[in-house]
């Protein structure tokens, strides 16, 4: 892990983050927060729907905007996050919250991959789901909320360690 962090810190991204003005970190941080807000906001709405809130609204009506905004949020959060980390990457190697955050993100991604392979998810735009299928999706929604909440909570605490 140390080698990877040292490499990132010494990389072009690390140099650019450190050497391009006193506002660089703040501005990249701003976009990191905006993208996390988009990501978690859409995840919260979609997961609550999967967990059974707002059953009168069709799932597809919620999943369509949430998946798009959430996916873009994830891409921007990852890119800006790599920049923030690269600034002083080696300083995070002894930060316990960092080792909660990264696995929580990876677990969240595994959960997304698993959900998107389910027939119920693939077909939710074109047909009604059975009660059994809905409860199955609810499990993925619950895991998702737990993963992303943990990732964001640990990520915030990284700064206070």
């Amino acid at each position: 892990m140390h080698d990877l962090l040292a490499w990132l810190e010494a990389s072009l991204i690390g140099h650019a983050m450190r050497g391009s003005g006193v506002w660089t970190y703040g501005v990249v941080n701003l976009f990191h927060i905006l993208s996390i807000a988009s990501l978690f906001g859409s995840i919260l709405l979609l997961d609550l729907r999967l967990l059974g809130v707002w059953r009168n609204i069709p799932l597809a009506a919620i999943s369509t905007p949430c998946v798009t905004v959430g996916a873009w949020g994830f891409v921007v959060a990852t890119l800006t996050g790599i920049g923030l980390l690269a600034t002083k990457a080696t300083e995070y190697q002894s930060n316990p919250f960092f080792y909660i955050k990264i696995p929580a993100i990876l677990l969240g991604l595994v959960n997304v991959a698993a959900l998107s392979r389910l027939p119920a998810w693939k077909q939710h735009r074109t047909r009604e789901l059975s009660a059994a299928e809905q409860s199955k999706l609810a499990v993925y929604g619950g895991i998702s909320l737990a993963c992303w909440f943990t990732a964001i909570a640990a990520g915030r605490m990284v700064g206070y360690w």
Partner: protein
Amino acid sequence: MHSRRSFFTAFGVSALALSAVPALAHHGWGGNLDEEFEISGTVVTGVSLAGPHATMKMKDDKGNVWDLTLAPPFMTERSGLKEGSIPAGAKVSIHGHRNRDPKKYEIKTERVTVNGKTYNVYPDRT
């Protein structure tokens, strides 16, 4: 009617939650001792204006290397401290607050004095 009530409930709850935040806000000073702390030493690594806080490293006469956490980059630069303005090897005096953990050699630094010139990176703090 129902949704309006839940909106006000949510608003009230968040107002309460936010009122508890200032104690912790902005990577606060809570992790550092309240008492003022002063120490002198030799600069090992000069000022870096990278975020989230500007930093430098200093070695005291017992050989301990201290991490000096300065203000955020813009505030540090505004105090007159620039990258390269204090070279490695320079003698500096530091005024600030030491980390609560006695095993951590870290100071949230308010003032740096070098060659009789003081850089006050947190002018609003004593």
